[in-house]
């Protein structure tokens, strides 16, 4: 899932300066699961902002709604009917949700209430960790299902650096396990440590952000064009 975190109240309050009526829009997918922008968080943030702006003598009316998926236009089309009465949308979606709203409603100011952090999952209750950087060229088959791109600070491809502690922790952060320590242990558990002796060539980063904005085209799923002459 995409993991996000709420911006500080003072930053959001600054964004709302001069606005009279704002629609807070949550998202029922990833940010609900990571407790950053679901129905409950929309309620808490809206209430906090209504009080904060009232205390500043610049009250903002904040109405609340949640859509099932903010990153697809079909799920946010119905919002258009009521947007005329709002000065802005405060999106509690990830960066994708904010941009989808802004793209569909170019005449309405869309403000982000969250900082989108990473693609990851919960490691324990209340803790989320990054698990994928979307490099576009997955190599998890070589590393026992543990990603050295997202979990190793140096994104090493062929074993650990010299910064692995005796306890298998990374020198960058003692709370972070060394990805390559875990990969070695996992491959040992699977009985395929010898596969790690195969040298991985330098990674082609053109499939990652180095290649600019990425997109996927699936011709089999695209809307067919009707030939007028037939």
């Amino acid at each position, binding site marked *: 899932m995409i993991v996000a975190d709420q911006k500080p109240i003072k930053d959001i309050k600054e964004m709302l300066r001069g606005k009279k009526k704002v629609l807070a829009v949550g998202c029922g997918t990833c940010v609900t699961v990571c407790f950053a922008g679901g129905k409950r968080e929309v309620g*808490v943030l809206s209430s*906090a902002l209504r*009080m904060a702006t009232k*205390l500043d003598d610049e009250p903002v009316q904040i109405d609340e709604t949640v859509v099932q998926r903010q990153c697809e236009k079909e799920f946010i089309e119905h919002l258009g009917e009521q947007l005329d009465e709002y000065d802005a949308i405060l999106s509690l979606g990830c960066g994708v949700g904010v941009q989808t709203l802004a793209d569909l409603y170019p005449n309405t100011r869309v403000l982000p209430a969250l900082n989108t952090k990473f693609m990851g999952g919960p490691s324990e209750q209340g803790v989320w960790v990054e698990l994928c950087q979307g490099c576009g060229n997955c190599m998890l088959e070589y590393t026992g299902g543990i990603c050295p791109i997202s979990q190793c600070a140096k994104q090493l491809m062929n074993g650990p650096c010299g910064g692995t502690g005796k306890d298998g922790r990374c020198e960058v952060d003692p709370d972070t396990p060394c990805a390559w320590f875990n990969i070695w242990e996992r491959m040992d558990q699977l009985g395929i440590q010898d596969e790690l002796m195969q040298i991985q060539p330098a990674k082609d980063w053109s499939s990652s952000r180095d290649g600019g904005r990425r997109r996927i085209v699936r011709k089999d799923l695209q809307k067919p064009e009707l030939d007028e002459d037939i």
Partner: protein
Amino acid sequence: MDNIATYEPQIIAFCCLHCAYAAADLAGTSRIAYPPSIKIVSLSCTGRTDMGHILKTLEDGADGVLVVGCLEGGCHFQTGNLYARQRVEHVAGLLDQIGLESERVRMVNVSAGQGARFAELANVFAKTIKALGPTGLKMKPAAREIPLPSPAEDELTLLLADQKPAGKGAI
């Protein structure tokens, strides 16, 4: 809020049905007084306390919110009161960001047999809220005449300082 002199704070107490609600009942049947301005909302467990409930309560006009759960270690659902404490502390942090005094929300723990303790905590909390005055949502801070208490004078903090978790075999 027209007159600060006749001001009586509105306090909502979210009380666990298994302990605090029974303690409040015991205080009543024992004729131990606590302020009538404290309105009790019973919950099946303080673990049911939602941060949105606390904020909305303050937004809708309450001056203080007290969450009263079982003694730590004595929760009917084991950890509900511990979750509640974390949420109350989070809301207190939010109030600081909003510009309201974080002392307006507190979590305290009592057992079902501690009617007198419930009344004591309720009285002290009501006194603290009265000293804080109405929230800025109802009255501009400049209009207040009662000075805010310093943290060192916060009686509830002092009262809770000797409160120990119930632990194994408590009650």
